[in-house]
Structure formats: C-alpha cells, structure tokens
C-alpha cells in the first residue's frame, strides 16, 4: 500500500507503543532556546539525569535578545538572567550553543534550516509552537511545552499520538505581489484556526511545488496557526538543492546517499489521506488580517466582514475583534492607518523576505508618522543582506536596520508596540497583546505588504506599487 511521509517517518522513529496507546517517538533533532528551557534543565538536575543525546541537541538565543545594543549585560536584568541561564545550562550539560560570538545566532526556526541541521525524514522538537516551520524540508516537527522539553532532554523521546493527515493542495499559480505568506493566511482563513486540530498538514500542489525552500518555510511555519501540530512539504529537487553545502548537512558522496534516502521518505503516489482540502492559488490576492486571530483575514481589496454574517457561536469573537481593533464591519481594510511596520520573525525574517521588502522600500520613504523596523532572522541573514546592500536601501528609505532576534513578533525584548499603536507586521500572530502592548493592534501581512504600508502610512495594495 502506498505510504505517506508521515507514515514512514513515524514508523522509523517509533521506539514502542506506550501503555496509554501513544507512541514513544524518538526525536532526531532537539532545538532549544532561552525562554522555555530553564525550568526543564532545573527538573533534569532535580531528577539527577543527563541529556540523553547531547550530539542531537542544539541551542540558540533569540526571544529576549535586544536588536540594538547587544553588549552584555543586557539592560533588562531579567533578559540577562535568562541568557546567563542558557549559557550556563548548555555548558554544564555539554550542548552546543549558537550565541552571538559564533556568527550563527538567530531565531531557532531560521538557523535550523540555514545551518542544515534540519533535514528530511527527521523528527524535530523544540519548545516553541512554530517548530512546524522545519516541516518545509520534509521533517515531522513539533512544538512542545517545557515539561516535554525535559522529556526530550532526558530520554530523546516524546509520548505522542499519531495525528491524522490532511493534504492541503494549492493549485494554479500565484499572481505578482502575492507571496507564500498570503497562501498560508488564505489556507488558515478557509480551514479555520482550529480546523487543523488533530491533523498534520501535507502541503502539495503546483503552487507549493514551485515554491523556494524559504517560501515553504513560511507556509509550514504557520501550520500551528491553523490548529495543526505540524505541517510538511515532501522533499524534492528544491529541498536537495537547498541543503547541498550547508555546514551540518552531509558532505560529498555521503550527501548523494542522504539525498537518495530523503527522496525515499516522500509520500508515494496513490497514498490515502484522512482528508484533502483544495485551494485555487490563482484566486489569492494579498491578504491582511483585520482581527485578533490569524484566521480573521481578508483580501486587501475586500471589506471587514459583519458579525451577523457569521455562524452564531463565532459572533462574540468577531464583535470583540472589531472593538479591540477599532474597526467597523463593512469598512475596507485598504487605507487603515498604521503606526508601526515590522519585517522579521521566524515566519518572514529570511533573505528572500528582506529582498521582497527592499524591492518595495526602493519606491519611497517611510511615512513620517510610522516607526519601521527590519529585523533579520539570523546573523547569517543579516550578513547576506548587508553583502547585497539591502540594509542601505532600507536605511535610505527610513527603516531601522536591526540585529537578529524574535523582536516585535512577541515583544519579549525592548521592541514593543506602545498603547493602541497599529502595526503592519510580517509575523505570525495578531492575538491581543501579542506585540508587547496589552492594547496594541496587529495587522498580519507579507513583508512586501508591510513595506508598502510603511511608505504609504496605511494598508496599501502592494501590487499597485510594484506596477
């Protein structure tokens, strides 16, 4: 019987079936960062346990890192304390840490693929919900909580139930000015923010197959926003070309042998899925969220929906969203004034994202009332962008060019919204309070759309600027 990638990877990593009926699943790559690990290391010490496979564990610093002055100690004593714990814990347990001095530091979901740590056919875990990102190379990657981080540190395993599998097919071709971010926002809008609960998503179809690896990373990144625990794209030529030459990928003849195995884990033709969903990629226009979860989105040319048009149980959330955002049902999203523009995050902080934003930044200057930040996803992204002069394009247009980190995606460092500021953001969540101000407001969109909003001071159709 034809098997899926999920079937094959799950089976290869099954240690045993637990008395609960769940699988004891071996985790091939464990990525750790400073926010969700200190308590896990503490528990490990209390249990007098070692890290089971230190050679399969890699750390970085990302969530709390300032993006301006990165000299230690950090101005925020709590951030300093967390960084210090991470450095001390990784040293004590003998784990590699990609800190500032390595030149490889960055957002955990940016550096994993970038360094070639993330490979097809692996199981991957990290104490961060956006671990789903790594599925773009054909891995099964789960976001986990801190007690589960303890489990992986201590046993290299997780107790997990195998999810069902939904293939999400995107047919047709994307129009100019429409990006991977628009595709995943459209998918979440159609399938809903809890539509993926209990499922893994396999992204497929011509639009996904034509995507670059960085675009696929953007799509898989937001699987969790659709409720799916993980999402993946089958490994293909694009995957293999992307991994060739990366420092932690196999080298030479071993790479060719690895590539053969990677191809062999892809879903076989005729494999059955628990569900299939189809979208027409040609019909997708630039997408903007208007509400308080990533499913509350519309095409940039559309108007904000009316609560009365929603099913009854959804109406209170819609009303709450309108009240929080200060929007009226029926108003167009185009022209909504913004105060802050943010390009960065594990969703859209890679080189191709910065290039797309720079292409738009060339066309104007940041509006006088807008604070605009460009935050590369990693030190290597920053270096590559600087090598091609992107930082100069941004600075000339009035954007601030920052250092690598999670930054204003979740406001755990000094980059935060203030008061009711409205942010055009390339990040992944528009939850109330997400960007650091309890009353702050977030409009999610692609990096090019963020740049367009920055230079016009309001939500704009980037297709008009790119004409």
């Amino acid at each position: 019987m034809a098997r899926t990638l999920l079937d094959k990877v799950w089976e290869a990593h099954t240690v045993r079936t637990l008395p609960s009926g769940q699988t004891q699943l071996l985790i091939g790559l464990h990525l750790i960062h400073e926010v969700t690990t200190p308590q896990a290391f503490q528990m490990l010490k209390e249990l007098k346990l070692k890290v089971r496979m230190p050679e399969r564990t890699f750390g970085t610093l990302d969530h709390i890192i300032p993006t301006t002055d990165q000299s230690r100690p950090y101005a925020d004593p709590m951030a300093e304390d967390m960084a210090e714990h991470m450095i001390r814990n990784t040293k004590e347990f003998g784990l590699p840490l990609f800190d500032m001095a390595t030149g490889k530091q960055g957002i955990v979901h940016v550096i994993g693929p970038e360094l070639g740590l993330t490979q097809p056919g692996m199981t991957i875990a990290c104490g961060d919900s956006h671990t789903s990102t790594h599925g773009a190379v054909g891995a099964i990657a789960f976001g986990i909580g801190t007690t589960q981080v303890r489990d992986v540190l201590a046993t290299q395993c997780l107790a997990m139930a195998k999810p069902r599998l939904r293939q999400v097919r995107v047919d047709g071709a994307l129009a100019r000015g429409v990006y991977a971010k628009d595709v995943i926002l459209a998918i979440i809008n159609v399938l809903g923010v809890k539509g993926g609960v209990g499922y893994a998503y396999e992204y497929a179809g011509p639009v996904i197959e034509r995507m670059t690896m960085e675009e696929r990373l953007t799509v898989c990144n937001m699987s969790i926003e659709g409720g799916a625990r993980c999402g993946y794209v089958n490994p293909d030529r694009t995957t293999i070309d992307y991994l060739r030459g990366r420092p932690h990928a196999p080298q030479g003849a071993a790479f060719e042998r690895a590539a053969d195995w990677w191809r062999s884990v892809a879903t076989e033709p005729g494999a059955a899925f628990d569900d299939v969903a189809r979208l027409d990629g040609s019909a997708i226009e630039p997408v903007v969220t208007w509400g308080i979860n990533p499913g509350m989105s519309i095409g940039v040319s559309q108007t904000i929906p009316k609560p009365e048009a929603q099913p009854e149980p959804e109406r209170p959330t819609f009303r709450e969203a309108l009240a929080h955002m200060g929007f009226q049902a029926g108003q167009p999203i185009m022209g909504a004034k913004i105060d802050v523009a943010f390009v960065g995050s594990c969703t859209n902080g890679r080189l191709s994202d910065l290039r797309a934003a720079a292409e738009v930044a060339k066309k104007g200057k940041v509006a006088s009332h807008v604070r605009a930040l460009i935050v590369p996803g990693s030190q290597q992204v920053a270096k590559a962008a600087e090598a091609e002069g992107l930082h100069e394009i941004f600075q000339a247009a009035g954007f601030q060019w920052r250092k690598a980190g999670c930054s204003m995606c979740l406001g755990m460092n000094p980059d935060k919204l203030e008061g009711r500021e409205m942010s055009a953001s390339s990040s992944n969540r528009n939850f109330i309070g997400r960007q650091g101000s309890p009353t702050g407001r977030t409009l999610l969109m692609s990096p090019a759309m963020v740049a367009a909003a920055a230079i016009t001071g309001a939500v704009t159709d980037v297709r008009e600027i790119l004409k």
Partner: protein
Amino acid sequence: MSPTDFKRREVAGRGIPVPGNDIDTDRIIPARFLKAVTFEGMGEHAFEDARKQNPEHPFNQTVYQGASVLVVGQNFGCGSSREHAPQALMRWGIKAIVGGSFGEIFFGNCVMLGIPCLTVSQADLEWLQRAIGRDPQQPVAVDVEKQEVRCGERVIKAAVPDGARKQLVDGTWDSTAVLLEAGAAIEATARKLPYVRGY
C-alpha cells in the same frame, strides 16, 4: 511519592466560567511574564491583561476565588506552546478544564501537569457556564474515568482522548519515568536511522 498521588480519576470543586472562543495562550499569560527562570508566582499573572481591562473578569470576582474547574469555550489555549499558560492556571488553583475544544500543544502541556481537559458539546458548555454563573458555590465534579461532568441535577457527557485519559487515570502522565523505561530500545531505534548511523 506513591503512584496513587498521580491518579487523576476525578476532580471535585467549584466552577469558574471564562466564556469566549479562541482564547490564546498569550491572553492566558502575556509574553512579558515568560521572562523568568522558574514557574513560581506565575499564578498571580493568569489573564493579567484581560483582568486589568475588565474588572468583571471571572478571575477578578470574589465568588470564584478558590474555584478549581475552569469552563471555557472553543479552541481554548491555541497559539504559543508556552507551558507558562497551564502553569499559571494551575498555580491560580485550576485542577481541571472543561471546554468545547483545546489547542493541541496546550492540551498536551496540561496532561503533562496532570490537569485533565474534557470536551463537551456547545449546548452543554453554555448550560454549564450559566449554571455556574447562577450559583458559583455549587459543587462541580469532573470524572475523567467515566468521562462526565456533574453539576446540580445533571450528568453531562464529556470526552477525553483514550491515551490522555489512560495516563491521567493510571497516574502515568509524568512521562519522563515512563519514557525512560524503554531503556536501550531508544538507542537501538536511533542507530537504525540513516542520519544517526551515518550516510
């Protein structure tokens, strides 16, 4: 610790309703409170911003202090994987959660802490929230083993997925000990993987 300490067959206490769908973990515990190297004191920040903006928030109301059964809407705990969310609720006093559906990482984190999350129908959810609102002092019992919630005269059918239910009822939700039992089978599984063995 005897194994019986871990069994979560039933939680009995008073209820506290927090209505609304898609309440994410940023709302349960805003990111600024994650800047800590322990979970201690997390309980006082549960729903902090929501409570500040709304003095009527159930977590602010005197009648609900001491409640242990949280009754929520659909997709509760979606978003970030932060275990700080269930930790905050647990440290506030929550011992069981009844809802329409749950974010999956949140659900898993709750199991890891021995907090049962039960799903009930939308109609039963609304009834339960109204009933608790009318009489916050009445007992609410969550029976994990029988998969039911009892309140007043009513016995409401509830569900917990098999694996999680077994872990809670048997007291095997403290997974590290269970996973360690596999012993050398862990390394044996690893050695069979091409990327561990070497290509």
